[in-house]
């Protein structure tokens, strides 16, 4: 391996630090309507970094005016230990990111919206009134990350037991042993 020539640096420097003008027409429409939004292309997929306050409004805009018929998934990411994380210019990173993936069947396209959620107030508006199908995924995010979805009619734990303490997918919730006791078992383990 020592005789291989050093790899040429073919990384193109970013052309300008100004917000990228979106090649995606949906993203352009959202940017026009919600000026705080930042467009970002991630491996060929359009991504909108949405302000937390307009999370619900952007989804409503996508559903009612851009014909995004389904919200296939809502999930979250904990960036606690991810120090070298690259964000597009114009976005202030917070600890949590809530991610929603939308599909438009009539237009056969996808779009992803991401919102920064601070550690101090981990909450975001629920999309259940627009897309009832996010009911389970939002409960899952609440269960595993402790992010509240305001307006969700049944925000309870879904995968973990009801009396569980902590949020397992947070980075500071380390995997550990759970003591298992059996009734009538004389030896505590």
């Amino acid at each position, binding site marked *: 391996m020592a005789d291989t020539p050093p790899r040429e640096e073919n990384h193109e420097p970013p052309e300008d630090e100004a917000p990228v003008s979106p090649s995606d027409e949906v993203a352009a429409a959202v940017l026009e309507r919600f000026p705080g939004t930042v467009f970002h292309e991630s491996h060929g*997929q359009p*991504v909108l970094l949405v302000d937390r306050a307009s999370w619900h409004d952007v989804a409503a805009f996508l559903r009612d005016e851009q014909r995004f018929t389904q919200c296939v998934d809502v999930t979250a990411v904990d960036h606690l230990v991810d120090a*070298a994380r690259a964000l597009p210019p114009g976005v202030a990173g917070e600890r949590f990111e809530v991610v929603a*993936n939308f599909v438009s069947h*009539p237009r056969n396209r996808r779009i992803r919206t991401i919102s920064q959620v601070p550690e101090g107030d981990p909450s975001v508006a629920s999309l259940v009134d627009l897309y009832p*199908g996010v009911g*389970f995924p939002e409960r899952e995010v609440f269960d*595993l990350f402790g992010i509240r979805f305001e307006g969700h009619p049944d925000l309870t734990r879904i995968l973990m037991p009801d009396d569980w303490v902590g949020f397992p*997918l947070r980075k500071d919730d380390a995997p550990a042993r759970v003591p298992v006791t059996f009734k009538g078992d004389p030896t505590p383990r």
Partner: protein
Amino acid sequence: MRPIRRGERAKRASSQERRASASRVSRLAASATRNLEHQTDEGAQELAPLSPEAKARELVFTGGPWPDVDDTMILNMGPQHPSTHGVLRIMMELDAETVLRAKPVIGYLHTGMEKTGEELTYVQGATNVTRMDYAAPLSNELVFSMAVERLLDVEVPPRATWIRMLMVEVNRMASHLLFQATNGMDLGAVSMMIYGWRERELALRFLEAVTGLRMNHNYIRPGGVAADLHDGWESDLLALCDQVERGVSEYAELLVDNPIWRERTVGIGVITTEQALALGATGPILRSTGFAWDLRKAQPYLAYDDVDFDVIYAQRGDTFDRFQIRLYEILESAKIVRQCVEKMPAGDFRVQDRKITPPPRARIDESMEALIHHFKLFTEGFRVPPGETYVAIESPRGEIGCYLVSDGTSKPVRMHIRGPSFSNLQSMDAMVPGCLFADAVAIVSSIDPIMGEVDR
């Protein structure tokens, strides 16, 4: 007089049988065209925009406080009930024998696989995700591998792509055959269980011959597949297709026009397109409502562009349609598999990038560097550039997606699998209200949930 030898008679009988079976399959295909419309046009589906007064907003969202009145009864079905396919618990509110609403209670099989995924390298990740949807493990491996490859920006060689497509389709056949078996059992057609299992075992035998394992294969890995196909795979596959097609024609004969079967399934658990879309349902549930959406056609991945197959969809959106769609999708998968046998390209079965692919086994015995390289790859793994991506494919149960976030190390920051069963379970909200208690079993069965994927 020449004695009649055994072999001759058997041979004649079997060739007759083959002819009969071939004509049965063609008759079946004709009846499928009659019963279900095939869709061959690409991609986009025209759909009226959702109006404010559309059904979606009126859907009753289960949950909230359950009523305190005495004239209804809350009944728990499961978590240990033979027809809940594992450890699914369904809380049902009953008025006499009518189900007013149902709430699935899940989490009994939760093992924190997404948390585990953050602890494993990208090399090890496929072993983890393959255990989620244990009836279609190759779809899980495929979606994970495709997400990793997109972050790495790696192009997979054509032979690997075709092997992947072939294996995923054999797996789809196995998964749908399992559905035929369990669905029959749930509705009392117990002989159907044996028949479905019989053909599924043949499909699993092929998967075992290629991957070494019946389930949880860890065969599709980032960069390609683990091993090339074995010698004689073509004849194995063609025999498998023949047997499965004969099996499907038997099931169709047994069930499709069976009055008891129709009585139990037609018009039961009806869901509309609007409801299915709003509730996040994908796969056969969405297609049963007259909405021909299949990611293999709409947003093609692998080599689905180069093979000819139809998207099966139906109009009524009931339990019978979901059964029928899965039945005929087996034939479509067999069609794709036959084309894979014809068109399989030669070449590498994994990408020849030494950063991702371990050296061949023979090199390890003779080269110290190869041994070190192998060791480093399997202990440390490879580094993936920072970024995030979402990849979605069509699993037998619907859209399976992988959301992957990397920070430049060899382990993902976040590995999330969007399980189709998880979202499909919610469509019970729209199907169950007003049905009889016994029909609830049929409806749960027709959703075909795999609890390993629901709970992850």
